[in-house]
């Protein structure tokens, strides 16, 4: 299955991109998707347990992904 990973701010700088389509086995978790991102150029500098959101909601690393999900990897927020 394919999911979309979004990268922002410092994480987008690390991987030099804001969006990556990932192909994963059915039943993969957020953790599995993060492992794929870490294997990309620059990805090894992502933190061990970044904040993530799946389909606009904060999510845990063991959440199971579904075809077409939008996985956002979220650097420490600094709004306001």
């Amino acid at each position: 299955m394919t999911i979309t990973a979004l990268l922002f701010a410092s994480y987008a700088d690390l991987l030099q991109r804001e969006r990556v389509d990932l192909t994963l086995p059915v039943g993969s978790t957020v953790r599995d998707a993060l492992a794929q991102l870490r294997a990309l150029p620059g990805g090894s500098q992502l933190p061990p347990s970044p904040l993530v959101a799946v389909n606009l909601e904060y999510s845990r690393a063991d959440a199971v992904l579904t075809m077409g999900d939008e996985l956002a990897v979220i650097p420490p927020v600094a709004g306001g």
Partner: protein
Amino acid sequence: MRVAIVSRPLDPAALIAEVARSANGATLLFIGTVREQNDGRDVTGIEYVVYGPMADRELAAIAAEAASQFSTDDIVVEHRVGHLQLGEASVAIAVAHARRAAAYDASRYVIEQIKRRVPVWKREEYTDGTREWVDPTAGALAVSQP
């Protein structure tokens, strides 16, 4: 109740007008602005970037929580993104309530939750020409170390 991520200058007076109702005795407006200094470095401007759809959703959730906890629907929040100059407003929160204590508490709740949850990031630009993403957690860790 209304929240928005916008890319134009904020208009505090318009937000105040938007929450005004004659049942309210207290109106509180919070404005966050770009400071000239952060962690001892001279800032010349800030670029705000946002995960738009999720920021909309979190802002709306925060406003709804405040409305429910503090019993007022008169809450309007705007967060600006894009490039901001020194002194420009990045966020404005207007809250009106029958009573002032609840207005203060609701306003404070909204800004603290925004700082914690809304997916917005800022890259500060310094007088020496460098720029850097702000990481509030890095600051917190540094402070907690001896």
